[in-house]
């Protein structure tokens, strides 16, 4: 039996000043699962996502990705984790305004020393996948919110990362566009087999996921 994609045990995150964002979180997420983490603001869901993505570090417990412990004291290992294992989708889209949609998608590959031709080809395929084939040369400022988030999703997929972490991906979108984004995430999960962990506070959108993990005050609740 293959190890789970993500496993955390007794994960804690204590911020300076005594704020406990995570208080012993135990979760297990299988490969290819689409999991929604729901909870109110301040419940610790974004902190959990940041720790899984290797841009924040826990103060206790451990994280295992595909059976391998993530060493948060090893900077090189964390950079490799961010380059190859995870793809981020943010609430604010977080595209680089001076780059076109295609360039934004291929941006992560720049740090992996991939050849320009390969990057370009991959970015164009992914833009087509998210339905933006005709918008490759547009700058973020020329795209709608939904389109920007699609570009961000394509960017998260470009490194062939097996795990996509989306933090409130529809938080800045209207309900119709939010539905479209979740549908897109769902289909990518089905077609590409990527594991999706989506943080949202909208229960109805969580219905797109295979299962929902609830969080409250830094703990997993049923």
């Amino acid at each position, binding site marked *: 039996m293959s190890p789970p994609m993500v496993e955390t045990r007794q994960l804690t995150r204590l911020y300076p000043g005594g704020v406990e964002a995570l208080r012993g979180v135990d979760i297990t997420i299988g490969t290819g699962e689409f999991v929604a983490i729901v909870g109110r603001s301040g419940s610790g869901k974004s902190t959990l996502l*940041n720790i899984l993505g290797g*841009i924040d570090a826990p103060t206790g417990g451990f994280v295992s990705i595909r059976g391998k412990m993530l060493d948060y004291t090893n900077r090189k290992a964390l950079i490799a984790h*961010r*380059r190859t294992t995870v793809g*981020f989708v943010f609430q604010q889209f*977080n595209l*680089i305004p*001076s780059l076109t949609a295609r360039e934004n998608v291929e941006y992560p590959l720049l740090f*992996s020393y991939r050849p320009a031709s390969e990057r370009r080809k991959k970015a164009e395929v992914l833009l087509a996948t998210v339905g933006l084939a005709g918008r490759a040369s547009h700058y973020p400022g020329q795209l709608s919110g939904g389109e920007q988030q699609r570009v961000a999703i394509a960017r998260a997929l470009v490194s062939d990362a097996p795990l996509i972490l989306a933090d409130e991906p529809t938080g800045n979108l209207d309900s119709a566009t939010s539905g479209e984004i979740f549908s897109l995430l769902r289909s990518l999960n089905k077609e590409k087999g990527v594991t999706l962990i989506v943080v949202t506070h909208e229960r109805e959108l969580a219905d797109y996921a295979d299962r929902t993990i609830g969080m409250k005050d830094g703990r997993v609740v049923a």
Partner: protein
Amino acid sequence: MTIRLLEFIELAFRQLFRRKVRVILTVAGIAIGVAALVGTVSLGEGIRTQAVEAIRTQSDLTLIEALPAVEGNTLQLVTATKASAAGSLPGIKASAPLVRSTFATRGQTYVQVVGLPAGSLDDVLISRFQKGRGFTAGSNEVVLGASLGQKLQRYEGARIGDPLVLIRRTYDAAGRPVDNETRVVPVGIMEERGDDFDQILLMDLSFALSLGGDEGGYSGVLLRTTGPDQVFPVAGGIRALGLSPRGSFEQIEAVNRMMDMVVIFLGIFAGLSLLVGGLMIASTMITSVYERTREIGIAMAVGASEGDVMEMILTECAVLGCIGGICGDLLGILFAFILNTLGGPFLASRFGDAFAGLLDSEIALVTWPLLAGGLALAIGLSLVAGLYPAWKASRLNPVEAIRSGR
């Protein structure tokens, strides 16, 4: 790696294009600094070249005299072996040992006398005569320098072919002065040379030695180099032999020493304005990093290492420095052009004939190494100025950076 650097450079241009006004001001700061540096150094180099050229054309640069070195308080005469070694140095076309002594005429004119082998008048001294000819070997014939000849003709009625009495005063055992008279025959007066030989009476070496004076050696060795390029190496060779080189090249050395100081001081002041340009870059990049905090956080989240972030920021600094350096070089060339076009006629009209030479020559001399140096300095300074903002950017916490509203 190189391709990625090119892509970082392209990204840098895009980032800079987003902040046009600020970038233009920063580039202007660096450009003015580089232009000031290029302008002042080119001016210094131009003046140096003018001065050196003047020395080259107005004096006999390829003639060097190797003098005995002073050891303690005594002058060690040049031995025949040393004279021969000096004559065998690479770059020497001809050489001749010489003796110097001082005589007086009956009219109380003090005369510096140099004894040289007869043949060296042609091959070492390359003498030209306004009157008469050179002396012959073993004779009491002498040749007068232009000024000395004029003086003796005017005040003592000396004429070519008429004997001239030279008096050398010595002292006997009782300390009484004894004047030894020597009869010589002037056979030629040299053309004006513009050096010490204009004041000298030249005679054959063997005749000079027979008159006494320097014993057991020579007063020096006259050396003629194969060309102006050989002058400084030969001077070095003479020093290596323990002798002391003298000649017009010393004026060039003096000009170079002086101009080095002038260029350094001018360069320091110009460099200060370049320093201001560097501070502007640091300020621009610190602001840029502050404004792009979120972007840097995103780059880190998608896999950029701390080194990648530093490389990106430093590439931007290098691009800024490069643009500033190129603009500064162009401004410097413009400054030199204006100086050469307008400065020469201005100085010539203001100070008269002494500066007439400036009309058709370059006061400011811009060279490729100078332009390359200006550009390299601008890039180097920009990189140094960018170190702190780049380091600051690379130390950002990705989570906090992404959360920041910037």
